């Protein structure tokens, strides 16, 4: 098992090294995260002050969700992503990936996982520091119990497994010459929105809450972060894990079968 995992550990290490190559890009990305939080908190604050409706969460919980989202955003498909595999598929450069003694799906899944995790780990320290330094309503107020925070971290990790399966599904769609790359791009954007990256899902209209709760992308970020922000109780942990398991397995199987089919019908012309 240890020997079998060695190539995948090496891919993770390489992805992390790649992320550390450019200091300017790293600090630029960190500053963008913080500025984006300020803008989003200002907009949400205006809605809370002047809005007439009743939100399902308090302003402090909403601000807390926004900070946590910014920390977790790198785990989402398409956000700050390494498009190496994507570009290889688009340019017909997948040849080298197919002459490695690795399962192609696993190879790309681990590349996606490494990329997402590496970016998350690189961004988490400065963004958390900025969140803790912010004062008043702008600051991060974790009202949840340590157990809820643990539940949040656990479901965020399992949500990452779903996120990487979605990324591989996008690779599969892009490989299929009958589909092209537009559906994959749309899928990435839709998955980000439905994961609550623009607006926490609890702030969406009540009529949509049932759908939003059970669609696959909620389990990637929004549901895990609710535990940490204190807007979901621990009793919701089993259904969240079940949702992640069902969607994760479904998307994983679909992506795997699709990539397998594409490989059998692969066209790679021109040198």
């Amino acid at each position, binding site marked *: 098992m240890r020997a079998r995992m060695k190539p995948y550990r090496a891919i993770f290490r*390489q992805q992390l090294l*790649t992320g550390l190559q450019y200091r300017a890009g790293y600090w630029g990305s960190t500053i963008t995260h913080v500025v984006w939080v300020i803008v989003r908190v200002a907009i949400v604050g205006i809605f809370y002050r002047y809005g007439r409706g009743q939100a399902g969460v308090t302003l402090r919980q909403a601000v807390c969700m926004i900070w946590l989202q910014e920390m977790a955003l790198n785990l989402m498909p398409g956000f700050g992503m390494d498009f190496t595999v994507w570009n290889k598929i688009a340019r017909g450069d997948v040849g080298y990936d197919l*002459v*490695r*003694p690795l399962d192609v799906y696993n190879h790309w899944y681990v590349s996606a996982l490494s990329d997402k995790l590496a970016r998350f780990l690189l961004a988490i320290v400065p963004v958390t520091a900025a969140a803790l330094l912010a004062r008043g309503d702008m600051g991060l107020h974790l009202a949840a119990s340590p157990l809820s925070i643990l539940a949040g971290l656990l479901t965020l990790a399992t949500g990452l497994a779903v996120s990487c399966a979605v990324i591989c599904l996008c690779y599969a769609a892009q490989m299929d010459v009958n589909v092209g790359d537009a559906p994959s791009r749309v899928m990435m954007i839709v998955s980000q929105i439905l994961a609550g990256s623009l607006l926490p899902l609890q702030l969406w209209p009540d009529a949509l809450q049932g759908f939003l709760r059970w669609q696959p992308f909620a389990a990637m970020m929004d549901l895990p972060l609710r535990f940490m922000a204190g807007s979901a109780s621990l009793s919701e942990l089993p259904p969240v894990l079940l949702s992640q398991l069902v969607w994760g397995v479904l998307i994983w199987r679909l992506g795997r079968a699709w990539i397998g089919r594409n490989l059998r019908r692969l066209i790679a012309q021109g040198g």
Partner: protein
Amino acid sequence: MSQITLRQVCKTFVLRKRQKGLLGAVRGAFSREKELVRAVRDLSFTVEEGELVGYIGPNGAGKSTTIKMMSGILVPDSGEITIMNRVPWKEREAHVSWIGVVFGQRSQLWWDTPVLDSFELLRDIYRVPQADYRRRLDDLTALLDAGSLLRTPVRQLSLGQRMKCELIGSLLHNPRILFLDEPTIGLDAVTKLALRAFLTDLNRREGVTMLLTTHDMDDIEALCSRVMVIGKGSLLFNGGMDELRERYAPYRVIRARLARECAAPDLPEAESVKLDGLNAEITFLPAKAAPAQIIARLAEACPLADLTVEAPDIERLVADMYGEMAL
């Protein structure tokens, strides 16, 4: 049993054609024209262990498609491919552990990090023990004089330096077969000579079987014991370089510079005689006429300032062959 065997292999691609312009794009959304391209048709050949074989043909002839099928990347529509007793696309993971591939127009190295990081990643992907990796890397870098490149990020390497590193990367896991798809494309003369010397040495020392596609006929002449010519997906020639010459260009050319202008000499044994001022070009078949006799008769007719006897230019020969294929 041969190390590589291809029997009656066929591969067809479906091309979807689109018409130009806005109207064409709108039409294309509803119906598209399909065209079947037969990239490889009924291709059969064998390669023995330790052979260094050149695989040539014009652009679009099916060379790269053949290499990709032998590498396990593409699945043929019909026919059999057996390499080291395995069917490449059915046992892809086991198969690729024993082969190395260099695609001259692509890169397997990580663009942003030093070369050594890519090599260590390849070491772990192929599960090469550390001691073997160290020894192999030392050997290969010494042979290619690439030691100073290892800590340089790939993006800062010249094309020649990168190609040396691509070759090292493909050989770290000690493959028994190396597929080289245009490895010398775009390289300067010095780097080409260094790569050729390296490949010859590797073939002799370790008995690595090599199949090389290239458009550079000097590569073929310098490296290959056998050459296969493919055109429109079919094998047109399979044999030694001398045999290729004998079959397609059996003539020799005497180029002479005359000391003074004179009338065209009478040389009935020559195939053709061209005289342009002080330059004479005489084509003859060695099987029909001895060169010494022709040169003696030429010297009798006109005093000579300089003279060479040349085999036909291999580039010319192959260009003629490709021209015939296009007809």
